[in-house]
């Protein structure tokens, strides 16, 4: 299957079912390679639709404490870029779930942009979301992704002015990601108030599926966001299950699967 087709097919299946997609973020190799593979398996069993894999970076400046510590655990366990690709290859032996890398540009740039895109594609990755790469700086990566048939996912933020939304949408593929509030990643209790309007404003400029994330952590929030978005992203609330259960792998896997299942339940309630 062509890589970015997995993404398109997923969103069209969800549309047919009349529901939003559930996007689960975890950091690759957190807390180590073997357990991370099992964490991904548990998330898939728990019913998530898209796997957003954080590629651990030494300086994750767009991430809150939960994800910083996740990256630190992965790097301390010796995780390399090669391990992250290997993780994807392992997942591909049992699942066709769309997989997106959530990453920082130096990790791509240092490997040679074209080479990195090719390796991602070969491993079974479907798209790249590069947190510190605005479309204005992304020519090289956009071309490489086209070449390798990878989706290039861009973020839209509350501070993004209207004129810029169209510009970003034009350069994006796969889906768009609306960060529902200013700030770094991390679970929060409240959602931004103007979500409906913002989502409507974005939809004026694009037919790409739109997922919403940053800070979503409860079933209630999933229900709310699923009303307006094509996909709901949950990260820190899932990642937290890992450090809370470091002493017991079965407990860790049960906790994350259960958490995923309960949050995924919010999609059909919407």
């Amino acid at each position, binding site marked *: 299957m062509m890589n970015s087709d997995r993404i398109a097919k997923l969103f069209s299946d969800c549309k047919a079912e009349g529901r939003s997609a559930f996007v689960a973020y975890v950091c690759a190799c957190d807390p180590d390679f073997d357990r991370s593979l099992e964490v991904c398996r548990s998330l898939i069993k728990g019913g998530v639709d898209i796997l957003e894999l954080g590629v651990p*970076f*030494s*300086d*994750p*400046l*767009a*991430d*809150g404490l939960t994800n*910083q510590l996740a990256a*630190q655990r992965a*790097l301390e366990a010796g995780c*390399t*870029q090669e391990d992250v690709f290997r993780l994807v290859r392992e997942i591909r032996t049992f699942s066709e779930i769309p997989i997106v890398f959530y990453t920082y*540009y*130096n*990790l*791509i*740039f*240092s*490997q040679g942009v074209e080479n990195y895109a090719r390796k991602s594609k070969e491993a079974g990755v479907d798209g790249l979301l590069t*947190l*510190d*790469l*605005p479309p*204005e*700086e992304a020519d090289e990566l956009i071309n490489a992704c086209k070449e390798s048939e990878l989706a290039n996912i*861009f*973020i*839209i*933020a*509350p*501070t*993004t*002015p209207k004129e*810029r939304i169209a510009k*970003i949408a034009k350069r994006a593929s796969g889906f768009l990601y609306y*960060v529902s509030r*200013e*700030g*770094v990643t991390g679970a929060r209790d409240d959602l931004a108030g103007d979500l409906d309007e913002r989502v409507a404003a974005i939809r004026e400029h694009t037919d790409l599926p739109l997922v919403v994330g940053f800070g979503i952590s409860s079933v209630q929030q999933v229900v709310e966001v699923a009303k307006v978005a094509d996909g709901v992203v949950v990260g820190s609330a899932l990642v937290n299950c890992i450090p809370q259960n470091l002493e017991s792998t079965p407990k860790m896997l049960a906790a994350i699967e259960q958490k995923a299942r309960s949050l995924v339940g919010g999609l059909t309630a919407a």
Partner: protein
Amino acid sequence: MTVETNEPAPRSVMPDRFSLPDEKGRFGPYGGSYVPETLYHPLKELNDAYLEARADPSFQHELDRLLKEFAGRPTELYFAERLTKELGGAKIYLKREDLLHTGAHKINNALGQALLAKRMGKKRIIAETGAGQHGIATASVCAKFGLDCKIYMGAEDMRRQALNVFRMRLSGAEVHGVEAGSKTLKEAINEAMRDWVTNVRTTHYILGSALGAHPYPGMVRDFHRIISKETKRQFLETEGRLPDEMIACVGGGSNAIGFFFDFLEETNVRLIGVEAGGRSLKEGEHAARFEGGKLGVLQGCKTWILQNPDGQINQTHSVSAGLDYAAIGPEHAFYRDLNRIEFAHAGDEDALNAFRALSSTEGILPALETAHGLAHAFKRAKEMRKDELLCVNLSGRGDKDAMEAARLMGVSGLPQMPTL
């Protein structure tokens, strides 16, 4: 595009120094704006506000007045007579940025950006600091203007620059210790950027070096350009000619680019930046980006970065907190490719020796950052003729380092710094 010879580019191929950065924030292949989407538009607003302020004579006038009355400009160009005799070579001049209020060149930029923040209606200021000099300058300017101020500082730097932490708190700033990674400047910048991403509507981030995303590298340089303007005028007044060689230490590169800027097109003046050689040039033991670094993207800009083959940023080490950083300002990388600015490095030992030597020959206690530039200058002076002129940017004073230097020199029975 690295040039392999040591001949500087002829004047004809030197770019107009005012043409950089271009509108995308680039210095040739370096610079740019590699930031999360949340910051992209606010940075554009900052750039617009800055360009407008720069063109407004009343802004410049107000800044000039503050630089004079609050910071103490112009700073002297000082002939280091005993040092010159001792070394027996070139005539050594020191540009005395250490005499500025708060003790280093950093106040030039802190004042400029704080005025800009006021103009933009931002009432909350954040900043990172390594040595604490930028933190002090920012805290002091915020106290003066009545702005809220929060400073991010690595926990290791808080330990070795305890005096500056105390001074920042006295000025009413909140100092936030950062425990991640090597607990130094890079981690402090990450944390400041996280704050900014969260509070960008109300907050201005006063970045302290010629680093980061556009417009910071060019804007910070502009605020420090006054150093080279004065130096040029002072040399013409005292010696009737320009110096043969100029040397500055390079952390992110703000004092160096400010000191070099008006000499970039004077291609007979040799310009040398000195990086921190640390304990050795082994990975993780130094901060000499041009020795072992390669092109990459960190904290907003594309430049030379110390990193491993996977693209993870290396830990760095220097005896001086202000040079202990994995990336170098993009404009330096650009002028290095043209062979216009050359780079050398000085190690911890050399810096400590220079720190002592300047104190004992001239009665001037330099910052440990500055001491790296001095260490290289001592070497160069001896190689130069007696009728040649060598100028070192004395970027800061060493009061903040006295305790740490004493510890490193094995002095016992030191008093403890009070915590506030």
